[in-house]
């Protein structure tokens, strides 16, 4: 039983690390939307440094190397050296690209963090919708008459078999893409597992003596559901929800990767990977970084879910032995 808490701690540490990064890193990273000279600073590998030269008329250029010959400043943009009279130059600043730059010379690290904010919040919002819908559906199945239960659950079983990506793509062909529609679509098509879990757990509760006692007191079904059943669902629901969050992040990434998720210019991990994939021969790391960010989040959430699950099982076994 020691494995549970340790795994849970490890998972929570990973999630905490990622959340800290996503929330605090924008303070030190450059503007994720700033386009810095695509020719001089585009498609740079990780750990690159460029010199950003700003001229009097407000234009700026970036180059990998800088040299001074008397009154003239020479800047290497791509493969060619270009010269600027020093008196026109307002400032020369070095800029680091921790994870390289994309085709437009935007900072990949900064965009990755910004995209993380988007992808994680889309995941959490659609998860909230899915959990709400699923809980309502599952509770309706338990509280309603037997035929309703059978109908609702048979529908859930069949709907669990939907090829989600196809259905989501078909829907997104006809709706205007926005953050809101993505959240609605994801949430609306992933509550079925929650409904099944809620029903199963609620049925277990219904056989417990305390439930029979509450029922014997003549409480209304709604009160029974809210006050006497729902609190017992929190642990299994939390375990299931953390795992589901990973699935939702993967689904959103696939949708955005195909160009039907979060619309540009909002970055998301999936759309960043899609942009990177267009130039994978030149810069294979461009699709790899967002991919790793997704893998890290899903791994972290799944580890937390595993830990919670083991913890729950341990509690139950201890409870039964007593």
């Amino acid at each position, binding site marked *: 039983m020691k494995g549970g808490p340790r795994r849970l701690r490890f998972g929570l540490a990973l999630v905490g690390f990622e959340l800290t990064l996503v929330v605090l890193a924008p303070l030190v990273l450059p503007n994720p939307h700033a386009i810095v000279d695509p020719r001089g600073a585009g498609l740079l590998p990780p750990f690159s440094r460029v010199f950003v030269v700003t001229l009097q008329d407000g234009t700026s250029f970036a180059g990998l190397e800088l040299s001074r010959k008397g009154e003239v400043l020479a800047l290497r943009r791509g493969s060619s050296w270009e010269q600027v009279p020093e008196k026109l130059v307002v400032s020369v600043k070095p800029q680091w690209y921790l994870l390289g730059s994309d085709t437009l010379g935007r900072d990949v690290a900064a965009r990755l963090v910004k995209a993380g904010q988007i992808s994680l919040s889309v995941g959490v919002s659609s998860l909230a919708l899915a959990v709400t819908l699923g809980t309502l559906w599952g509770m309706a199945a338990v509280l309603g008459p037997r035929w309703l239960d059978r109908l609702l659950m048979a529908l859930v079983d*069949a709907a669990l078999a939907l*090829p989600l*990506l*196809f259905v989501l793509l078909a829907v997104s062909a*006809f709706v205007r893409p926005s953050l809101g529609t993505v959240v609605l679509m994801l949430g609306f098509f992933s509550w079925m597992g929650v409904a099944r879990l809620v029903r199963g757990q609620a049925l277990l509760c219904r056989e417990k003596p305390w439930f029979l006692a509450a029922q014997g007191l003549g409480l209304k079904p709604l009160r029974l559901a809210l006050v006497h059943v729902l609190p017992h669902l929190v642990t299994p629901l939390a375990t299931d929800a953390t795992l589901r969050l990973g699935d939702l992040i993967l689904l959103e990434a696939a949708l955005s990767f195909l160009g039907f998720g979060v619309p540009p210019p909002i970055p998301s991990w999936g759309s960043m990977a899609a942009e990177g994939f267009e130039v994978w021969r030149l810069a294979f790391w461009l*699709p790899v970084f967002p991919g790793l960010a997704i893998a890290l989040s899903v791994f972290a959430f799944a580890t937390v879910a595993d830990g919670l699950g083991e913890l729950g099982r341990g509690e139950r076994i201890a409870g039964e032995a007593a």
Partner: protein
Amino acid sequence: MTTRLLRRLAASLIVVWLVASGTFFLVALAPGDLASKMADPRISPAARQRLREHFGLHRPIWKRYVSWLTDTVSGNLGDSFLFRRPVREVLAAALPNTAILAFWGLFLELVLGLALALVQASKPHSFWDRLLSALSLGAYAMPTFLVAAVLLWLFAYTFPLFPPSHMAEPQAQGLSFGGRLAETARHLALPALTVGLTGCGAVARYVRGSLLDEKQQAYVLAALARGCSKRRVLLIHALPNALLPMITVLGLSLPFLVSGSLVIEVIFSWPGMGQVFYAAVTARDVPLIQAGTVLVTTAVVAGNWLADVAYSWADPRIRR
């Protein structure tokens, strides 16, 4: 048991019908009808009216719905705007290619997953078990495009062993049957490996869990007491029982397999259902989107139901 399966079949039909109706009403109720989307906006109102009548758009929506539904059920799927061919032909050409990719991808997924699980379950909670657990969780967590990007970079670019896209080179038409087979196999390698690598984690996690459950059973202890080797007990006694629930798991993972191969087909330009469907969605090719959604949904829901049937037939504890 039979009543439960029949009930599930009825529910599956309802879900397919709901999805089909959904695609119809989504199109029918979306602003701007087909005639205005397809045609040049500068055509005369009379010509537009003729176009609307050609597509039957002047009829009330419920009549259109009923005739569309009967057409779809009877396999009359209309013409694809994008490919300028009957939808049925387009889908019939794509379906076998998806089946090839899904079959070999699933094969690799199972082989890799089972191998991982057996190594893990032979010495549970050891160093290797923990390492492989982390690896299989990592495989589960990786998005398909990450695996595809790494495989492409490694085996199509740095070491160009396999072609990065399509099912065959244009000149492969002239090859013999064996030559064409080898050509397809070479092109299949990277997409199928992507399916296998992304899916094997989930399989390994599941089989490891059920193998460890089986190892707790009395019959395993009895076999060990009889003097069977540990390997024999694991492979001959525990594994078949642990694999039985895999039927359901495979059925349940079918939607993920199909959804995952959509992305993979797009990345590797594999001419299957996923790529055709993606092209249709990008081009707003309405008949192809509708028919594709209905076809893929029916296939996956049916596969799922069949897995349920197979499981109740294979497990004597459920069979009644």
